[in-house]
């Protein structure tokens, strides 16, 4: 199974990713998912999400999930990009593509991968309020607007 993983602070360039797709002549289904930051997170309007990642573990856990996908024998290719750092509303934080011979297994594998990612891959997000009453919280302080929200480590 071909696999590609990128954890990056750069914007996700979907056009470039699609231009880089390759599939063999036996493949009939490509399912792609883009996860985009929404303007509301919980109760409040936000400007962005700040994503933090424990990168070596995230890469290891992603590859464990890819191993499990490969074990199915039905997925020819999986490509995944997770953006970290600040991602503005309307921008993609996640892009996943699965290529299979058949449609059902491509949809299932793509959803499974995202579900498992949300269970085991060490990435956290923190809301950036749209109109902060205070300047951005320095590392080490609990954000005043959302004390129970996740916060990147100092």
């Amino acid at each position, binding site marked *: 199974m071909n696999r590609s993983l990128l954890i990056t602070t750069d914007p996700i360039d979907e056009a470039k990713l699609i231009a880089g797709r390759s599939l063999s002549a036996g493949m009939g289904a490509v399912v792609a998912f883009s*996860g985009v930051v929404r303007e509301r997170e919980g109760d409040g309007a936000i400007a962005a999400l700040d*994503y*933090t*990642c*424990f990168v*070596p*573990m*995230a*890469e*290891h*856990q992603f590859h464990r999930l890819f191993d499990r996908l490969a074990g199915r024998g039905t997925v020819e290719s999986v490509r995944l990009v*997770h953006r970290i750092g600040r991602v503005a509303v309307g921008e993609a*934080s*996640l892009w996943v593509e699965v290529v299979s011979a058949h449609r059902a297994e491509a949809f299932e594998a793509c959803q499974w991968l*995202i579900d498992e*990612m*949300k*269970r*085991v*891959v*060490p*990435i*956290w*997000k*923190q809301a950036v309020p749209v109109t902060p009453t205070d300047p951005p919280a320095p590392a*080490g*302080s*609990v954000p005043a607007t959302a004390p*129970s*929200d*996740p*916060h*990147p*480590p*100092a």
Partner: protein
Amino acid sequence: MTIRVTFWSYFAELAGCSETGVELPEGATVGALLQRVYVDHPALAGLRRSTLVAVGVEYQDDTHVLSPGDRVSLFPPVQGG
């Protein structure tokens, strides 16, 4: 042995630091480490049920036996996507 512990996400706020060292006898388990961490950082104790623990890059549970040089990470539920 000294086990290095890293706190991720808002656990760093609650602990008051992003990293600490914990002195433990050889053969100590993750559970023993957590007991020590919760004494030093009581704000984390209430979140024990939802706390995830990794040794290196693998998840481990309380029964896992630690070795010298292990690096342990404690963090809340993950939120990728």
